[in-house]
């Protein structure tokens, strides 16, 4: 066999093609190198480098920083050099397809006959079966051989016998799923048996799919848009130029019994330009809202600092009056029962930490919720902090026995990502083509056999096979079958 793996030597060298396999391999190597370099670079050059220039300038110096910024090593996949590599890949892929499409498609639909009979040799394992006199056939049954010998010409078999042998060979291959084609030229015949021809079509479809994916990616990155907008319940977010808005009706974090997050859900209503309801949906992770070319994703959320829906506190007035549960809303003052005092909720910090600059929240998580309480009444104003998780730790208010922070409904801002990607249909179509192409390319066992019958011998040669060992097993069986059938024929 020559080059194996479904290609002739001619094809493998890419002779006659504008883009050879070598060029394709070099281009893939360049893209591979660029991707691998970019992959590693992200570990060494942080993406926030442009925002911390001074720090990195001191660390690496002006010249190095200048090179890093010019080559955009902190974001290599959006740099000019990587775009250049992608462009090269695109051009080579396109040229490959254009120059090879005719050959790939035509080979899928017909077995190609050899230009000249192939000889059995090291490159082309096969077998030869002598025919006619050389095989000891009965002369009287073979007038061509009989008279040929009588008049000193080369002994050969009759045209009828050639047809019979061709029939035996054809049957042996067709039975095993090969497609068979032959050409008769006088007393000699050349034939080809091919299985798994669809791989050529698969090769074409797969590469076309890659091209479509690349075009889809370019269209998406050039013409698409993406923006994350945050909003709380009741907020309206504008996401289209025609006045269509999205109103957030609520945001929930679903938890399991073990306090693990099950899902994040934002309830939304799409309002058209007149303010009428156009659609209503629940946006969850993995379940975006798709509306007229825009997809809205549940991207993130945060817990607002200094904002809450309501907060509950338990107030313990001095001795005589029973403790009272008060529900505070932001900015409103509540009287404390049995006293002349009023209470107002001040700041709310979900993750309280006392820092040099005063109290602040160190994260958006409810790790240490703290509520500032402001008491007003005779004797002036007093304020202090109460803690949800540490009720005994808060400020001691002189005019009350104590205040305990019982519960709070914080305000969540849901982060919704609005994306428009006009390249998405192309991208998806490319992937479908890619899957179909891969299936055809790799699921069929490609095998090519060439042969000839020249009157004195039958030659069958294995030209190409993807799996040499299993092909050799099959080839051996075919040889036995053909030899047996021809012997039987000659005996008759």
């Amino acid at each position, binding site marked *: 066999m020559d080059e194996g793996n479904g290609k002739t030597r001619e094809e*493998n060298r890419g002779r006659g093609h504008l883009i050879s*396999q070598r060029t394709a391999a070099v281009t893939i190597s360049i893209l591979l190198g660029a991707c691998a370099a970019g992959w590693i670079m992200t570990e060494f050059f942080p993406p926030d480098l442009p925002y911390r220039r001074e720090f990195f300038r001191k660390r690496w110096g002006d010249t190095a920083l200048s090179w890093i910024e010019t080559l955009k090593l902190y974001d290599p996949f959006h740099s000019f050099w990587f775009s250049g590599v992608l462009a090269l890949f695109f051009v080579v892929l396109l040229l490959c397809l254009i120059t090879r499409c005719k050959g790939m498609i035509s080979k899928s639909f017909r077995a190609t006959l050899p230009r000249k009979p192939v000889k059995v040799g090291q490159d082309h394992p096969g077998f030869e079966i002598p025919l006619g006199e050389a095989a000891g056939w009965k002369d009287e049954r073979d007038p061509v051989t009989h008279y040929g010998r009588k008049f000193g010409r080369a002994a050969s078999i009759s045209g009828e016998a050639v047809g019979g042998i061709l029939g035996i060979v054809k049957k042996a291959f067709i039975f095993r799923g090969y497609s068979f084609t032959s050409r008769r030229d006088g007393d000699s015949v050349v034939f080809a048996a091919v299985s798994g021809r669809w791989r050529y079509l698969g090769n074409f479809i797969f590469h076309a799919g890659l091209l479509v994916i690349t075009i889809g990616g370019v269209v998406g990155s050039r013409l698409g848009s993406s923006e994350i907008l945050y909003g709380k319940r009741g907020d309206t977010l504008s996401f289209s130029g025609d006045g269509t808005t999205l109103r957030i009706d609520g945001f929930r974090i679903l938890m399991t019994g073990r306090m693990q997050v099950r899902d994040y859900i934002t309830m939304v209503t799409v309002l058209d330009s007149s303010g009428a309801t156009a659609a209503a949906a629940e946006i969850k992770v993995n379940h975006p809202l798709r509306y007229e070319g825009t997809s809205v994703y549940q991207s993130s959320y945060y817990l607002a600092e200094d904002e809450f829906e309501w907060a509950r506190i338990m107030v313990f007035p001095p001795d005589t009056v029973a403790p009272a549960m008060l529900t505070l809303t932001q900015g409103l003052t509540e009287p404390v029962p049995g006293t002349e005092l009023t209470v107002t909720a001040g700041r709310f910090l979900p993750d309280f930490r006392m820092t040099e600059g005063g109290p602040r929240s160190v994260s958006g998580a409810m790790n240490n919720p703290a509520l500032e309480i402001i008491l007003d009444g005779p004797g002036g104003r007093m304020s202090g902090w109460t803690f949800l998780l540490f009720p005994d730790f808060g400020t001691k208010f002189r005019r009350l026995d104590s205040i305990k922070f019982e519960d709070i409904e914080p305000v969540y801002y849901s982060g919704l990502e609005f994306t428009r990607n006009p390249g998405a249909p192309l991208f998806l179509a490319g992937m479908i083509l890619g899957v179909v192409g891969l299936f055809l390319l790799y699921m069929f066992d490609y095998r090519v056999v060439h042969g000839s019958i020249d009157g004195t011998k039958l030659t069958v040669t294995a030209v190409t096979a993807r799996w040499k060992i299993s092909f050799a097993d099959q080839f051996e069986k075919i040889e036995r079958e053909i030899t047996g059938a021809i012997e039987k024929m000659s005996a008759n």
Partner: protein
Amino acid sequence: MSGTADITLFWAAFWLYLGSFVLFAVHAASGSRRVGIAASVLFAGGLVFNTAGLAARWWISTHPPFATMYEYAVVMAWVIALSFIIFLVRYRKMSIGVIVAPVLIIVMVIASMLPKEVSKQLMPALQSYWFYIHVTIAAVSEGAFLVAAGAGAIYLIRGGEDRGGCVLPSKDVLEELISRAIRFGYPLFLIGALFAGAIWARNAWGRFWSWDPKETGALVIALYYTLVLHQNARGRWRGRKLAAASIIGLVIILFSFLGNLFLGGLHAYI
């Protein structure tokens, strides 16, 4: 060792694989058929425990065991073991176990060092049928690449010309095994890791491709094997070069797999 049943089964599988490796080594050195059979039986036992461990983890966690790096590594080990058993039945070359078993043990050791906590609740981003499609096919394809690497290692160790009486498979058999494993893994990897991953990413994160470190790693793996196949089709990377290429592929896969631990990104599920 953790107390859950799946971890106990994991360790049982690990020790059986380790035991089979020792016996496979003895078999390769001595050529004793009995030792080879004993090694194969131990290996098959390891596969049974490996399978049972995965089933137990599935049952305990109430979701297929693909959610963490530990689970992914154990699934990969399972794919390698299953592939080897299929190879064993097909080619009857027990001595190949002397290379497959250590590759498997390396994967199991890596798995053993990863956090093994069972989470009954998948994080919201993982709650999608694409998760099962993406991870299952990617694990199977990477398992096939690891099988190719194992065969590549044997090819290189074997060296020289084919000699009669050698307990290792012939170079032709090994080359075909490498080639078959890569040609089996490559389309699956493209479909499972890249295409299915991209479609899922669009549903979960709003974009097909984010140049996340794991995504880039998958692209590097895909491009690498694309290069291997192109070079192989050109008639360039055959024999020793193909064997060496399959081992380099293993290094890239391991780097991509362990990259989660230091490169971070959207795929940083430990």
